[in-house]
């Protein structure tokens, strides 16, 4: 790898203050904006989760009324998926993809700005529904018809347009990442030399472009069913409410891989660094990622086993779902094999990565259980599914994001984070998250339904334990905020290399990375 040529002088006439952030075309500024936006949404969505857990602390209705409880579960899901996890991943891509492929910036910098600056407006529109007459969306983040059409509050139309805006943002962001990867790589950076984080984002971007328009289509059909007399989801007119679920999950299943594939990429960067070995099975990782992406398009109806489908359909979707276990297992095997006989150290990013491998795999296994159609009949819409997708999204995607932040923040800020505090954050989170979600497997198998503010007495103990874990986990994230601010303000100076033996172009530029990097493309051998 060559040394990077950098120049950090400020441009004449470049806006300062708030206008710098509003008008910026710089991938690092935009990455920072994405990450802060995601963190704010994470705290807002987290506060809603606290309301949910407080209500479920004891059986009976004590804190909020049932409709508001439903609004909380709905908005919590929407904000975490579209406001926190996805923008955080795009933020990481913005910061890291150009640095990792030796590009001066993203391919389409102005559009990059727009991709971000649609988000706060979409977020405001979505959250504003809470204050509207009739309350906010209360039909769950999957907004099934007819709950979201015939029986929904008026504010649903604002929800629909917020989803449209989020879709525009995601599509433009994804187009930008594809154009960057295909067109902006440094000389010698062939596709099969790209770091795995770049590969996973590249494939994720294809998924986004393929399914976000389908989401836009389905909410458009909701809009016309609600306001213009169409009958897409009404059997009286020859449509079908189940059709909503098909179209929604054609988007929704790839969507869950959109949230996890970049996380796979992060883990594939962190583990080799702290095991001080090359990633085991690089090319199989690339092919496994592509296989998962392909399979994600042909398994959507495993979310609908209890909805009513011909038996042949249930069988097909069951077996197709099982196949996803194969490439996923390849990945888990490769991460484990990378650690095998490595010179391992356990700095904070590595702790998140190792716990990811364990805990994400638990979520993967419960996913396999529910992929079995006859078994899913028992688990469907219970707390078991809640436990499942929180294991893959919290201890999966979110833990990977935490790991990524600790891994790259020295490069972003020029300061090392406080290792002791980072470790406290990790252990506090890792223990409390299991107290929070592991009992939900039990109450789910025992039959407690999701999205209900009250429950029978036999679920009381585990719910109380789960809530205590939830409050502890929530508090840990405020501690994370403190660590981040402390790291930005000061701390031990980070070296260019940051991590001993870390490989990749991002470790050839100074810390903090100058405003413009790779003005002259590095030579990759």
């Amino acid at each position, binding site marked *: 790898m060559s040394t990077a040529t950098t*120049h950090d002088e400020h*441009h004449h*006439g*470049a*806006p300062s203050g708030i206008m*710098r952030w*509003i*008008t*910026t*075309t710089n991938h690092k500024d935009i990455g920072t904006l994405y990450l802060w936006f995601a963190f704010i949404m994470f705290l807002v969505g987290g506060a809603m989760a606290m309301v949910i857990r407080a209500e479920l602390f004891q059986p009976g209705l004590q804190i909020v009324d049932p409709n508001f409880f439903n609004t909380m579960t709905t908005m919590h899901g929407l904000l975490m998926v579209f406001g926190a996890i996805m923008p955080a991943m795009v933020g990481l891509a913005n910061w890291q993809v150009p640095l990792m492929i030796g590009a*001066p*910036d993203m*391919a389409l910098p*102005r*559009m990059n*700005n*727009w991709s971000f*600056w*649609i988000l*706060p*407006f979409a977020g*405001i529109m979505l959250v504003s529904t809470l204050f509207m007459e009739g309350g906010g969306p209360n039909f769950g983040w999957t907004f099934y018809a007819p709950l979201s059409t015939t029986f929904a509050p008026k504010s649903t*139309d604002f929800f629909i*347009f917020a989803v*449209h*805006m989020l879709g*525009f943002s995601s599509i433009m962001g*994804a187009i930008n990442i*594809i154009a960057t990867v295909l*067109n*902006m790589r440094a000389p010698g950076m062939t596709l099969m030399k790209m770091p795995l984080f770049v590969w996973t984002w590249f494939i994720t971007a294809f998924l986004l*472009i*393929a399914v976000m*328009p*389908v989401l*836009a*289509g389905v909410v*458009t*059909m909701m809009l*016309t069913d609600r306001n*213009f*007399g*169409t*009958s*897409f989801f*009404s*059997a*009286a*007119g*020859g*449509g*079908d409410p189940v*059709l909503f679920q*098909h*179209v929604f999950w*054609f988007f929704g299943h790839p969507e869950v891989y959109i949230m996890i594939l970049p996380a796979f990429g992060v883990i594939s960067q962190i583990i080799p660094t702290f095991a001080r070995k090359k990633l085991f099975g690089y090319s199989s990782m690339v092919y496994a990622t592509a296989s998962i992406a392909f399979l994600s398009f042909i398994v959507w109806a495993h979310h609908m086993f209890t909805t009513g489908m*011909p038996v042949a359909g249930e069988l097909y979707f069951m077996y197709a779902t099982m196949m996803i276990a194969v490439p996923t297992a390849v990945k888990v095997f490769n991460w484990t094999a990378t650690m095998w006989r490595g010179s391992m150290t356990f700095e904070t990013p590595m702790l998140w990565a190792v716990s990811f491998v364990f805990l994400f795999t638990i979520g993967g296994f419960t996913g396999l259980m529910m992929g079995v159609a006859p078994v899913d009949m028992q688990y469907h819409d219970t707390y078991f599914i809640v436990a499942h997708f929180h294991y893959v999204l919290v201890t999966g995607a979110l833990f990977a994001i935490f790991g990524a932040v600790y891994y790259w923040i020295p490069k972003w800020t020029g300061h090392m984070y406080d290792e002791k505090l980072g470790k406290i954050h990790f252990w506090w989170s890792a223990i409390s998250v299991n107290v929070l979600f592991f009992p939900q497997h039990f109450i789910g198998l025992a039959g407690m339904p999701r999205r209900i503010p009250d429950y029978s007495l036999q679920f009381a103990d585990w719910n109380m334990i789960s809530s205590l874990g939830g409050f502890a986990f929530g508090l840990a994230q405020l501690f994370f905020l403190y660590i981040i601010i402390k790291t930005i303000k000061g701390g031990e100076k980070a070296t260019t290399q940051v991590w001993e033996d870390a490989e990749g172009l991002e470790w050839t530029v100074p810390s903090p990375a100058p405003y*413009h990097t*790779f003005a002259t*493309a590095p030579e990759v051998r």
Partner: protein
Amino acid sequence: MSATNGGYYLPEPSHWPIIGSVGLFTFLAGFANFLHGGSSMIMLAGAAVLIFMLFGWFGTVIGESQSGKYDDQVDMSFRWGMGWFIFSEVMFFAAFFGVLFYARMWSVPWLGGAGNNVMTNELLWPAFEAMWPTNGPGDVGGDFQMMGAWGIPAINTLILLSSGVTVTWAHWALKKENRGQLILGLLATVALGFLFLSLQVYEYYHAYTELGLTLGSGIYGSTFFMLTGFHGLHVTLGATMLLVILIRSIKGHFTADNHFAFEAVAWYWHFVDVVWLGLFVFVYWLV
């Protein structure tokens, strides 16, 4: 002063995206407000801001392009960008085509008792027989007649296919630096585009006034108007973009080897063309 980064053009900070966001937010919030009985002024104001943004943003890009700031690599970024944007549009239409197939192959036959749904039909809608077109067992929207394929739709097919030929003819001219033929070809394409739209407006008028066919005519009306309507919207967009390219051609923009804006719009036009062929076959013809 912009950064020169190994030749790749990195734009200055830009205020157009934030104007676009404000416009988009105002437009959509105004639209929702309008649907709830409010005035349409907020929505129209938002649309005006969006149009202002499009003029400003594309104006900036055209200015930069004309002053020679872009190199081959920038050109390639635009190509990937436009190509994947069109793919996203394909997927948008795929959602609506998927709905059409689902309704025709499954949900309507099931309502009529197909598969293992005999009792569904018997208990819920005993009089309903599955057929296409239909406005469902509830006779939603009342009696209607379907839109035939061999009147205006067939003529419109010819019009759009011809416009694909004329735009290619214009492209050949551009590559041969034959400005007159370029302008003539574009003029013909734009004219055919707007002719198509006029005929579609007439077709809709005919449907509403004489056939009793409306957006509310059950699943047939829903799929018919949403598919052809979104297509018409895209033809409008494409024809408008062609008009911009025509004006730029008259102004002397584009050279034989540097005219990606022309090609991007031509790609878009062909995409709109192909979607129409799908519509003609599956919405109008095969019943």
